[in-house]
């Protein structure tokens, strides 16, 4: 075994520790990512995934009325945390559509039964293709889209209680 290889475990551990420390020091670092801001949503059409609920296509986002688009999955723990906030947004009369990433119908149905169902439409993005086209790297993520299908705000990560007002405002401003 060569000498430097023996230090490899320590180096790997140090890297993990540095990242963990950074994350601890900025626990609430909620940067808003604007990669998609002002950009039109790319063309897509996704089939439905749960019975009784339509799928989602680009035309559904260009109805003249602004909407929220939530990228989520039933296997995503933060999405459970986020669910009550989405229900609050829905209660304010804001229409919400969703893209379900790498999910299955039964699991998604169980998730909605458990955590509430704020969605008007859910598209089945089985291999994350639309998610990636949207410039979204992970779940959950939420976009505010104006009536012409242009992204006006991208919210990365869980919608916390504090974020509800900001998202509702962005939706109202887009009208």
């Amino acid at each position, binding site marked *: *075994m060569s*000498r430097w290889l*023996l*230090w490899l*475990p*320590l180096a790997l*551990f*140090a890297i*993990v*520790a540095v*990242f*963990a*420390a*950074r*994350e*601890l*020091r900025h*626990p609430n*670092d909620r*940067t808003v*990512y604007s990669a998609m801001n002002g950009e039109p949503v790319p063309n897509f059409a996704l089939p439905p995934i749960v019975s009784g609920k339509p799928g989602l296509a680009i035309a559904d986002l260009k109805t003249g009325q602004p909407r929220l688009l939530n990228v989520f*999955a039933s*296997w*995503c*723990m*933060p*999405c*459970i*945390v986020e669910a009550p906030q989405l229900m609050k947004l829905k209660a304010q009369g804001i229409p919400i559509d969703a893209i379900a990433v*790498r999910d299955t119908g*039964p699991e998604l*149905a*169980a998730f909605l*039964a*458990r955590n509430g169902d704020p969605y008007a439409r859910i598209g089945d993005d089985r291999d994350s293709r639309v998610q990636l086209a949207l410039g979204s*790297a*992970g*779940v*959950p993520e939420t976009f505010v889209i104006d009536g012409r299908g242009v992204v006006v705000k991208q919210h*990365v*990560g*869980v919608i916390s209680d504090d974020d509800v007002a900001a998202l509702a405002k962005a939706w109202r401003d887009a009208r």
Partner: protein
Amino acid sequence: MIAETGLIALWLAATLALMQLALAALAVHRGDDTLAAAVRPVAIVQGALALLAMAALIRVFLTSDMSVALVVANSHSAKPWLYKFAGAWGNHEGSMLLWVTILGLAGAAVAALERRLAERTLTATLGAQAAIALGFYAFLLFASNPFARLFDPPADGQGLNPLLQDPGLAFHPPTLYAGYVGLSVAFSFAVGAMITRDVGPVFARAMRPWVLGAWIFLTLGITAGSYWAYYELGWGGWWFWDPVENASLMPWLAATALLHCVSVLATRDGLRAWTVMLAVVAFSMSMLGTFLVRSGILTSVHAFAVDPSRGTFILILLALYIGGALALFATRIGSVRAGTTFDPVSREGALVANNLLLSVILGVVLIGTFYPIVAASFGTQLSVGPPFFEKAAGPIALVLFAIMAAGPLLRWRRDDARALLKRMALPIAATALAAVSLIALAGPMTILALLGLALAAGLAVASVAPLFGRNLLRTPLFVYGMVVAHLGIAVSLAGMTASNAFTRETLVAATIGEPARVGPWRVVLRGIRPVIGDNWTALEGRLEVQRGEAPALLLKPQSRFFANPPTTTNESAILTAPDGQLYTVLGQSDARGRWQLRLWWKPWVTLIWFGGALIAFGGLLSIAGHALRDRRQKRRAIEAERAAAYREAWGA
């Protein structure tokens, strides 16, 4: 005064830990035997004091002493006594005190019982153990004092998280912690042996019972935790790849690898560096688990106190211990002589392969668990879920099972591949037979499910194969241990794959008297009625369930309401049949008076936990087997000595 007694005991224990560390360091540095002799009693008293502190905390919880802040935040006088008792560790401060108590007791046990290890290595080991304890005492005393008083005590407390009000969960943390702490002892042994450059078979034999013990507790803890999540969370799943679950799985994977390595080192004097490395990694994983759970750095369905300052404290401890041990490894392991060598096709070879595969799975789980943290540093918040873990770890696990089947049928040091194939004929035939009959009889399923079930059959046969052609009465107990543990893996694998592949789920809005179907079961909602418990009220559904022509049975799932704190939980009702479980959950009612029912039929799901219990039982047989053999060898040595003395005295 009880709370103050506990606090004083904690301070004294911390002082003794400092003394233990200083004494051990001096003794090892100077090679002073008188100093070394003082380390053992200090370690024993330190353990006793930690136990006293824990006892004091349990006492304030049992008496619902509302002048203690921790009791107010986590207990309520109306709670059943079992949950007052368990409430002592059902919170952050209490669970950390439990951690350090088990740590102190383990150190005391090493000091009192260990006779095999060279005195100098033992002293270094106890020093390392004291260093670990010291960090956790500091954490308790400076960042999470469990005995803090309230100057204006309220009339009553806020209660325990209702999800934690379950007998299973009352004993889940102590089991898991015993496992984590057992690994801390293995870690201290490794550090001690690295300091005195004493890595060899004697060290491995001394370490083995601790690794085995820790591994048994971890196995039990994970199995029980999985069953708890299954029936208490009401989701009908048995594993969620949640960060908190992964936190217990990662040390188990490392401990499993370590366990097999330690055996090679103990019996064949091979794999020295690997064993030391795995001992360090295994404990690192339990510390990392503690960090994940206690810092709130990741989002988990298991709700725990979130506190970045405590997280920072644990991270610093982590850096000191793991960083220190890895640095020691890098500087010292070069001077540890390589052990004996072996052919690739040999029992050792299979064990190395098993170790590598376990390490890869560990890496997959580690990356999946920590990736969100690294991603967060780059400003992305995301979650890694079952699709990643199952796709990445599943295929590797199947290869691991195949090697696991072959390993025990291989000879030490060198074997012939063709002879192995002959010995593997029966397991391979069983795999093929299972695959063919599954395709013919069970209907369509995924490739992974088919492979899993067929491999489970082959693995089961291969597990008992080492007993073929042996005198069963003269077979050592630890061989039975291995057989039972491997069989347990096969049983669990069968349960996991079967329940995943064949589960049927029905979600209905039921009116009274209307039948629903799930799998072979017919379910009728007969009525809903209110029920009152110790500190909750509930709506209870009365479900008549029937399978074929068999008499109908009654299941009573509940939706429970707790007042302190106000929470609703779903108490699933589960019917266990010989070939699976019917799992029922009562949901909300709608405006038209229909009740939401979630029904699952999960064929063979119970095999998962039965297998887990078998695995742990195998570990127990193994410990007993090694202990018996050690005792027999010692007795034989004494007899031989006596005979020699006799011959000498009588000139025979």
